[in-house]
């Protein structure tokens, strides 16, 4: 083939493709689809039994007016096929005890938004996979599921391909790492590390069954309308973060997103924080009496403000989506999938533009400048954040602001009529929300002061009884790779790995059925608390890769947890 470079591993008998895309989520799907548009022979490798079976998101996908690519540009008919509901209303609830102050955020939500749909990842990604397979087959490639790429193939120190658990190494002219959060490829390339909890959020979600008509009735929406509710304030034990509820076609996605460092500091149990949301009186109006949870899931998300890689490439490898830290969580807006789509498509275009170039890094360079020029990087990692955060994340400033807010004067400031209007407007200002510092003030104190001063008390009885963790795990589907744990504890001391006992969403203090357990062990008269690990209940969220001392990999292709909703 004319375009095929021969400097790769081809002579050594490795299989060679022009492009390999690792991961078939929205980022990988977009990349592969654009590559196929450019006539590039593209192999897509996906570790799940089907695309989507490993993926979890809160559930809103945006099409931004300013974005160079949106998902329905690349996959026409996507909204009709797998969009659950268009999100037409958007609210934030500031909660202080039983007092709640609600703001309509629809204006903020609509800023730069062409459309926004609630989606479930298993359904959406599987649908994308089928389209991607069709398209890539036309240019000599295709999608292979159940294959886990476990590292980069190098020759003379240069990245030339990938290695897999299930297949022989494969070389390529372009390697797109769209392997999601905790990207093993990004780590292998030295582009991302998994060290700092403050660079991540942990999302936990329950998908709850509810008849479509009932949803429309309880949320006061039409058949082709949907709503997003956000929750912040003092219902999460002081952990920085918030909750969300999105309406799907005949389910609800209800979840929480917390700063991982805060979760660890407060030693909070993620499932209990989710339960605090589910059982808050405010939710009684929507959840009613019979509560049936279809799936419990969790995933880390990178904080793009801190980790979106400014030059997400090395040699022939480019990073796309969560793998590149491209997950925008600013204030209440959470945007990941849309940026992954844009980045994937741009990476493909960059390759097409530079494919004759002898310099193997030219695609990566072109991709980087396209991210910059298209304004994508500016959204992910706004420069303004870089200076506001310097001042306002500093604990001293935080303390002063909190002091004022909690003082009678501060309370008055929030409570006066002028402030009332201003607050509503401030919440709807993308600029202000972008600057909302990620401290307790923004997430907890301010919302609870607002709730306290301006809120009205809700008296509903919430009758929801969320399932116990043991039942949540029991309802999940696993294909266990018996005898091959994918995570190993390097240090089982409580000091090194104890944080995972609480932070792991399927573990808890005093629970024997989770992944991480603290055990008091007597040896020769001395007592010691050690941490033990069973990887079988793992939902592959990535938390312990950051907060415990582990050797962390994903399970082999097709093994481990299989999400049905996602």
């Amino acid at each position, binding site marked *: 083939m004319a375009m095929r470079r021969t400097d790769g591993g081809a002579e050594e008998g490795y299989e060679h493709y022009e492009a390999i895309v690792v991961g078939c989520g929205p980022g990988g799907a977009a990349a592969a689809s654009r590559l196929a548009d450019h006539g*590039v022979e593209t192999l897509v490798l996906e570790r799940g039994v089907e695309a989507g079976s490993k993926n979890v998101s809160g559930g809103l996908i945006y099409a931004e007016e*300013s974005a160079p690519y949106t998902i329905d540009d690349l996959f026409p008919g996507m909204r009709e096929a797998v969009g659950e509901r268009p999100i037409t209303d958007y609210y934030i609830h500031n909660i202080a005890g039983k007092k709640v102050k609600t703001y309509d955020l629809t204006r903020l939500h609509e800023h730069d938004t062409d459309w926004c749909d609630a989606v479930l990842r298993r359904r959406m990604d599987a649908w994308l996979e089928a389209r991607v397979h069709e398209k890539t*087959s036309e240019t000599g490639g295709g999608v292979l599921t159940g294959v886990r790429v476990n590292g980069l193939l190098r020759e003379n120190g240069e990245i030339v391909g990938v290695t897999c658990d299930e297949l*022989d190494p494969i070389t390529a002219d372009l390697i797109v790492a769209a392997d999601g959060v905790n990207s093993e490829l990004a780590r292998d390339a030295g582009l991302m590390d998994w060290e700092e909890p403050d660079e991540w959020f942990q999302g936990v979600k329950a998908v709850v069954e509810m008849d479509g008509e009932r949803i429309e009735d309880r949320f006061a929406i039409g058949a082709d309308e949907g709503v997003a509710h956000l929750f912040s304030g003092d219902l999460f034990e002081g952990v920085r973060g918030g909750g969300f509820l999105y309406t799907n076609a005949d389910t609800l996605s209800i979840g929480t997103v917390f700063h991982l460092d805060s979760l660890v500091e407060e030693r909070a149990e993620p499932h209990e924080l989710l339960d605090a949301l589910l059982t808050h009186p405010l939710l009684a109006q929507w959840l009613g009496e019979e509560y049936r949870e279809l799936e419990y899931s969790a995933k880390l998300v990178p904080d793009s403000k801190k980790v979106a890689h400014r030059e997400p490439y090395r040699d022939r490898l480019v990073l796309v989506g969560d793998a590149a830290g491209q997950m925008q969580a600013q204030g209440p807006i959470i945007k990941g999938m849309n940026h992954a789509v844009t980045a994937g498509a741009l990476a493909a275009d960059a390759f097409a533009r530079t494919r004759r170039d002898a310099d193997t890094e030219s695609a990566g360079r072109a991709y980087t400048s396209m991210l910059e020029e298209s304004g994508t990087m500016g959204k992910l990692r706004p420069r303004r954040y870089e200076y506001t955060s310097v001042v306002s994340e500093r604990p001293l400033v935080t303390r002063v602001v909190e002091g004022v807010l909690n003082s009678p004067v501060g309370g008055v400031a929030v409570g006066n009529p002028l402030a009332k209007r201003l607050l509503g407007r401030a919440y709807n200002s993308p600029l202000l929300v972008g600057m909302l510092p990620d401290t307790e003030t923004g997430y907890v104190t301010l919302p609870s002061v607002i709730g306290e001063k301006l809120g009205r008390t809700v008296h509903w009885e919430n009758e929801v009884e969320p399932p116990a963790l043991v039942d949540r795990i029991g309802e999940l589907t696993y294909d266990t790779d018996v005898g091959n744990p994918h995570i190993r504890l390097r240090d089982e001391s409580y000091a090194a790995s104890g944080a995972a006992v609480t932070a792991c969403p399927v573990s808890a203090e005093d629970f024997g059925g989770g992944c991480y357990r603290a055990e008091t062990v007597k040896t020769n008269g001395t007592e010691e608390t050690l941490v033990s690990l*069973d990887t079988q209940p793992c939902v592959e969220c990535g938390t312990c890769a950051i907060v415990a001392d582990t050797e962390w990999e994903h399970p082999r292709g097709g093994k481990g947890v299989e999400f049905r909703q996602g």
Partner: protein
Amino acid sequence: MGLDPEEFTVDELTDELETVDDADELSAVLEAERAGQNRKTAREAIHRRLEAVDAFDDAGSDGADEASEEAETEGEYEETREEVGEAAEGEAEEAAEEDAADAEGGPREPSEAAQEEDGLSHPTADKRHVRALSGGDYRDMWVFCEVQQGELLEVSKEMLGKARELMDQYAADYEEEHVVAFLMGDDCEGLAEECIAYGADVAVYHDDDRLERFLHKPYSEIAAHMARGQGTVESTDWRAYDEPRYVLFPATNNGRDLSAQVQAELDSGLASDCSDLYIEATEISNPVKTGEPGVKKTFERVLHMKRPDFSGFEYSTILCLDNPDRDFHPQGCSVIPGSFEPMDPDPDREGLVVEHDMELEEEWFAVEVTEHDELEAGVDLTGHEVVVCLGRGIGDDPTLGVELGLELVDAFDDAALGITRGIVTSSYQFEGHVEEYTKEERQIGETGQIVAPPLYIAAGVSGAIQHKVGMDESETIVAINTDTDARIRDFSDYFIEGDLFEVLPRLTEALEAGELDVTAVADGGED
């Protein structure tokens, strides 16, 4: 013209331009900009876009060449996809045979596909079911009778009993077909006769001193050879069909190992770990099976294979159905020991004993058993009268806990010690003499062994769902737990609220003193 640059700031224009792929249109935009504001940065943006579009156009024409060059690959690929698609249907009831084959390491390992020798192979290359039959002739219910230490395993007799019952009913419903026992070992003609006594009509055996111990390769080669009816005329003229209609394997360690391979060899599927079986017609609408969407088709004489599913709350019924152009026969499963009752042996039963004839290739015995150790309790926990299982309740003094468990085991005539996954993965520091009892090989549950003894004693076990599926079929379950809210209480026949460190020694004492009649307990007598 589509785009008017006057309407946009340069930044906006840059974004807008991304949507324009046509060089002529871009030139028009450039002209318009020149005629209007004539911004330098805007012109640059349009130039950049023009360059990009040019690059794309070239790429596009290359692409066309590639596509035709690769046409062959593409064709092959579709096939793979079709197969994957089938398995991905996810309709547990109907497409399950593929799932099963997959789960058991069946024929769809991608790595095999990648190993073609022409040097051109793609990892996506097709894997064809070369031997799969279509419209084959199938008859009889075959039962693999596992032999250990010169004796039929209990589960072999249980399966023969069930097969007898099923095929008697089959004769009443349809016509007469046979129960065929097949077995192999060092000297097993006598065992073949025993199979007849336990309900088989025909018993096919293969003797070879190298087969004394289970070996994956020769065992699976012989079993497939037998099932296909290969061999000399004398050894096969009792039958006139292609392959068995049904086949049962024991869900023991060896049986599971063998069943996956043999069913893959015969290009069929496998329902693993079943606990109930019946034969019935079924109506199916899945187009993969009917060949036509929207059409219902009735499949006759379908073996319904029930198995406790992942959560242990429900049973899945697995069916193994032919596709329009490809058969899935034999319909096969592995059976959890203890699920069925053997029939009372009748030494006068008439039946045909056939010695199987086949050359065994030397290389099949490349794996040599140089050393073996019979663990006194046996790491196979199935087939015992009693299983004592320890859970994390032993945490206060793990070594003592195991000792107490072992003492209770010894007090019974035929008992084995099992553990929960909680123990396997604990950080407990066991002392050397008990450590061997705390390994994965003794784990009971979803990802461990499945047992169904007459009596199951669970001490300090919470009763997690994944543990439950490994012991739920036990006849009598006794739980010892300090927590009256423990889940295990929901499925125990007897719940002893108490500290296992006190209760276990008392049980042991009572047994040794003959004060406790275990058979009475197992039969549901007084607590």
